[in-house]
């Protein structure tokens, strides 16, 4: 019995990791749709709006990838401290991508709701 319980737990944890991985870019795009954010601020914003524990080590490579794909733009803004902040914004392509992702997410949600009934 204990064995079955642990196996299920492990499966759920793995599944949740995959869901987190798959939805993080979607969450970032939704947050960046409101206004521009710098990296550290973006991490805090994700924590405020979701229960997801985002490791910064995974966030920056993802932001770099989104930039390479042309989905987000970034710019360095000098600060009084002398240590600039890198601000991220959604590009035009990014806004179109987000619209498409919202449609897919909505359709997926509806489909799952139907199945669950």
């Amino acid at each position, binding site marked *: 019995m204990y064995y079955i319980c642990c196996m299920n737990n492990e499966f759920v944890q793995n599944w949740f990791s995959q869901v987190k991985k798959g939805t993080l870019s979607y969450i970032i795009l939704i947050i960046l749709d409101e206004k521009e954010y*710098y*990296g*550290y*601020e973006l991490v805090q914003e994700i924590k405020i709006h979701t229960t997801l524990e985002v*490791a*910064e*080590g*995974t966030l*920056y*490579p993802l932001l*770099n*990838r989104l930039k*390479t794909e042309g989905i987000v733009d970034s710019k*360095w803004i000098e600060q009084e*401290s*002398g*240590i*600039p*902040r*890198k601000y991220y914004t959604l590009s035009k392509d990014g806004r179109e991508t987000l619209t498409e992702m919202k449609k897919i997410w909505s359709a997926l949600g509806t489909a799952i709701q139907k199945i669950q009934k």
Partner: protein
Amino acid sequence: MKRILFNNPTAQRIYDDYIARVNRCVSILSKEDQQELLMEFNSHIYEATHNVSPEDEVEALMNTLDKLGAPEVVLQLTVAHKKVRQATRSFNPKHVVEAIYLNIFNGVGYFIWGMIYLLVLAFGSLAIFKLIAPGHTGFFLKDGHYFVFGYTSHLPDGVTEVLGSWFIVAVIGLMGVFYSLNTVVFRLLKGK
């Protein structure tokens, strides 16, 4: 990049050591890419730690670095991708070799990309060889059958070269074809 100054000497040592590790991980990249990644880490560390009191600096810094992760691990993929971009932009053999080395574990895709790149270099070399040793470089037929396409020091009787100066045009054309193919392969890899 401006160094962050901590009040606590232990925090300063931990920070300096971490930045030195980031520096080592990105040293293979172009100066701009190195600077970009270093500034990104530095900015994050500063934002996460600049509001804490001196006695809490070590703990705050350790938590921040823990969440950022070991540079050798978290930077691996980013450095590999940036190196490939640098290699495809510059076409510098040194960068290409480094990019292949960094991406060797990213699958056979990069291996194919590297092989095609070597073919482009080989065809380019043949164009130069045709100018240096025209009698030994070309498209050779023996008794009407394919013998050699390229350079050969051994030319037995009955061998004829059929392309002449057009051989240079042919190898430059092949370079173009394989270069385009490499661009397609790179785009596919980038899209993975």
